[in-house]
């Protein structure tokens, strides 16, 4: 009896053990891929795009690496996905989450081969994750009340985040910058307000935080290069011929003179608009769209600084900084709120001229200018700084912090181990496995730093046997040390997200017992 194929031609189906193996292997491969980037001594990866130009990225940011991979294994895609979400939600810990999920699956694989049902493993993992979270909650430090202490907490978090990145050489400098920038936001998580400008040249150390606002634009020719007590009109309006928007309108003329007349009218219209803008009593005009030569000339005549083609975010930020509203009509000048700043001037950074707004009214936005030897360095620096900023802004809202350097993992592992001892039934194997997976993180950190991980982790475990221990791995000196003394801190929110998403992802992959791959969509043949 022929059993007809149920699926389409190219579709494939994998079942039971084979499906599970396929997803384990895929997920672990991805985890191993990013594993070597974990920790302060983690290595970087070079990513070459297959697109035009074969552009190269050098990074050790887990999310960036995984985002650029073309992955076919569905289980691996789950891991890529959690790393992406971690990036969106808390900004840091993108590598840790993948490594932890990978380790959880590796342990699960061992359990599955020793004939423990995946559902039992999941039940154990859930209990363990719950217990681990409680263990962390018990040990958090919250310095929200004490502004000074809180600031130093933030500094330490920023330094811990940055030390695994390319910026580790100047981490104090950058940490200072990041903390300052985030504190200016006053609790908002809108990182858009922090502008990062990359200019090649100089060294990373030359990077600086500017309290004002820097716009990467040039000042129009013949216009003042320096304005004090500037009144700024931020606008989003067409400054070309300002075409008639009524649908179906078109110009139909029958003689040259009429063309000239209409051209004149058009010019008049433009002039009108410029005059209206000038009526606001401004001396600086920033437009999101292009400003054509003619109006630019008019502005120059009036001694007004006109900046064209500021990108959308730039303009929004400028609105935020100067406190002006973004205008598109100019009929009633008295009610439009203008932006103010003390000084506008053209500054030089490297070889480029930029426009610098200083002494702005609202201090929320600021600019960070990054300098560095090459584009690759700058790109990576930007990513690192972005991570730090994300973590800091999240910490400002949720001020609970933990120690770093593998300390949280050891604390969790200890509690989870205890739980395993108390739990009856097969679940306890899974709980034990969870604790082993947690220990894998400090092990990896030590391994990546070229240290004797077995020795160090054993030492660490022994230290953690005493109550209230602050020991963690100090990669710099290559020994177990007190993390509080070394000032290695991490945000609670990041750790919690790592723990929960990794467990969730592992659970999801474990539950699968069949993989059905549909036939790839056929592309229409383009002849």
């Amino acid at each position, binding site marked *: *009896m022929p*059993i*007809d*194929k*149920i*699926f*389409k*031609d190219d579709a494939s189906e994998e079942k039971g053990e084979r*499906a599970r193996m396929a997803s384990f292997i895929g997920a672990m491969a991805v985890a191993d891929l990013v594993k070597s980037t974990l920790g302060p001594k983690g290595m970087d990866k070079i990513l070459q795009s297959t697109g035009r130009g074969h552009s190269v990225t050098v990074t050790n940011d887990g999310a960036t690496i995984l985002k650029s991979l073309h992955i076919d294994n*569905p289980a691996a895609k789950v891991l890529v*996905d*959690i790393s*992406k*979400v971690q*990036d*969106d*939600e*808390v900004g840091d810990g993108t590598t840790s989450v993948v490594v932890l999920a990978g380790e959880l699956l590796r342990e699960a694989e061992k359990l599955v081969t020793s004939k423990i049902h995946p*559902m039992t493993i999941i039940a154990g993992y*859930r209990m363990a994750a719950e217990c681990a979270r409680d263990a962390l909650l018990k040990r958090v430090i919250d310095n929200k009340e004490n502004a000074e202490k809180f600031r130093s907490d933030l500094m330490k978090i920023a330094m811990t985040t940055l030390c695994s990145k390319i910026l580790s050489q100047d981490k104090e400098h950058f940490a200072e910058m990041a903390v300052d920038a985030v504190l200016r936001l006053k609790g908002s*998580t809108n990182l858009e307000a922090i502008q990062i400008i990359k200019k090649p040249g100089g060294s990373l150390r030359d990077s600086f935080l500017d309290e004002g606002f820097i716009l990467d634009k040039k000042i129009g020719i013949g216009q003042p290069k320096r304005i004090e007590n500037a009144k700024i009109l931020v606008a*989003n309006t067409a400054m070309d011929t300002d075409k*008639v*928007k*009524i*649908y*179906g*309108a*078109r*110009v*139909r*003329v029958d003689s040259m003179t*009429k063309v000239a*007349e*209409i051209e*004149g009218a*058009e010019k008049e*219209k433009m002039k009108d608009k410029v005059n209206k803008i000038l009526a606001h009593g401004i001396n600086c005009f920033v437009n999101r769209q292009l400003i054509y030569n003619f109006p630019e000339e008019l502005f120059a005549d009036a001694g007004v600084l006109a900046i064209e083609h500021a990108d959308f975010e730039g303009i*929004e930020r400028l*609105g*935020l900084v100067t406190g002006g509203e*973004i205008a*598109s*009509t100019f*009929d009633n000048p008295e009610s439009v709120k203008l932006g103010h700043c003390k000084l506008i001037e053209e500054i030089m950074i490297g070889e480029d001229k930029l426009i610098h707004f200083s002494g702005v009214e609202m201090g929320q936005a600021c600019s960070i200018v990054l300098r560095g030897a090459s584009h690759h360095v700058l790109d990576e620096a930007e990513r690192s700084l972005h991570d730090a900023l*994300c973590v800091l*802004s*999240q910490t400002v809202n949720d001020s609970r912090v933990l120690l770093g350097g593998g300390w949280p993992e050891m604390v969790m592992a200890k509690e989870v181990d205890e739980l395993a001892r108390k739990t009856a039934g097969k679940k306890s194997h899974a709980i034990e496995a969870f604790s082993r997976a947690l220990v894998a993180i400090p092990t990896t950190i030590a391994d990546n730093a070229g240290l004797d991980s077995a020795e160090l982790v054993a030492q660490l475990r022994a230290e953690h046997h005493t109550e209230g221990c602050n020991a963690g791995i100090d990669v710099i000196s290559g020994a177990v040390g007190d993390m509080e003394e070394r000032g290695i801190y991490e945000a609670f929110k990041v750790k919690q997200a790592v723990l*929960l*998403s990794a467990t*969730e992802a592992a659970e*999801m992959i474990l*539950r*699968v*017992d*069949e*993989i*059905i791959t*549909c036939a*790839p969509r056929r592309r229409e043949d383009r002849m």
Partner: protein
Amino acid sequence: MALAFDEFGRPFIILREQDQKTRLRGIDAQKANIAAGKAVARILRSSLGPKGMDKMLQGPDGDVTITNDGATILEQMDVDNQIAKLMVELSRSQDYEIGDGTTGVVVMAGALLEQAERQLDRGIHPIRIAEGYEMASRVAVEHLERISQKFEFDVNNYEPLVQTCMTTLSSKIVNRCKRRLAEIAVKAVLAVADLERRDVNLDLIKVEGKVGGNLEDTELIYGILVDKDMSHPQMPKQIEDAHIAILTCPFEPPKPKTKHKVDIDTVQKFETLRKQEQQYFDEMVQKCKDVGATLVICQWGFDDEANHLLMHRNLPAVRWVGGVELELIAIATGGRIVPRFQELTPEKLGKAGMVREKSFGTTKERMLYIEHCANSKAVTIFIRGGNKMMIEETKRSIHDALCVARNLIRNKSIVYGGGAAEIACSLAVDAAADKYPGVEQYAIRAFAEALDSVPMALAENSGLQPIETLSAVKSQQLKENIPFYGIDCNDVGTNDMREQNVFETLIGKQQQILLATQVVKMILKIDDVISNSEY
């Protein structure tokens, strides 16, 4: 083959190009069809029950779905076989009608087919089998009615509803916080339910998901959530006592549908046209303002100038809101959707107690909450979760839970889950079989056996000894004559489903049996399959 001869002995052809077609007839056709149906059922079998496994499906574009919802698995499986497609349809119709039990119905149908095959081997005619199944299904449905229990709940005491929803959710990946989700689902359904008419319009419940956060952050919003933000970054982010103008006309100069041209040939015309244009925007905004609107929600985009005017007049606005959302907003706020500015009147405005914008995570994600609406009948369930797949799966699970709650409001009868109902039916059908004198008796017995396969699969998936467990439960039911004993999937230690609080809706179960029987009958009646062979 399909070759006939006329009275002169000349052959004439009934099937065109018959050498290019494959054809299966008679018993072979039935067997092939049964095999295909069984193959589909086998895929789903391991997803049944609280300890059922998930399937990972990779779509044609490489997107990954992880689910254990029968309807979703079958839908995305992209099957090619005709009979397999029937099974997909089967699961889909269960989904449309009841919303839950989509896996169970397919497993049931698969078991019926398997039994039918055995009867065919005995030489029983397929039609007789089909008829026997029909009779048996009637017996089973009646028996279900008999063992069902009314269960009481009202708006204040919704605990029983929550329990039932929890049964549904416990088979999904979200069972970690099933209590919370079940409560959310029940509250949502109760909020929109019309308890007088015993009807629930599920369209009023919007399920939104956003990646990030934990599953525990999932919340029920008495209002509408729109994945949009204010059209101008400097508009107020929070509006109290909003009067909402719901527009389907763009803030742009009018575009008459008839083709037309405006010719400009003199300077004067140019000037007037320009003036008019400015006036348009001004009028539009003024009209909204005049009727007392404090928030404009528009289906279309705004011109930059209009946008600024709106902001200038302190009239916050949202643009590019989808049609479905617009309708929901209109229902919730009691407003009318206005297609033209001229038709705006104060009565047509919607009212909401609070409209606010909320941002998430580190990326620039903002959503608009419209709460405390005039007509609180529309609610939104906002799901958060670790990744996209998780959210999609949660959405599906919530949908199932919503459907279950709805069914209970429609019909308060329940039966006990965990295979208890199936076992009870199986016993009843078996007992009834002896009363039928014909060949159908065998088919009816086969039906009883097929009913056993659902609890058997449950036991198997839960890691119990299937035959041992089933026979133990069956004898227990028979001995004590209580239809509440089922499979103890969660290893709680008792077989009594009343204690475990595992319920299912009566109509859901009845529908499962009826639909599965129908499809099996249909498959059994096919005795000739003609298909275009591909070679």
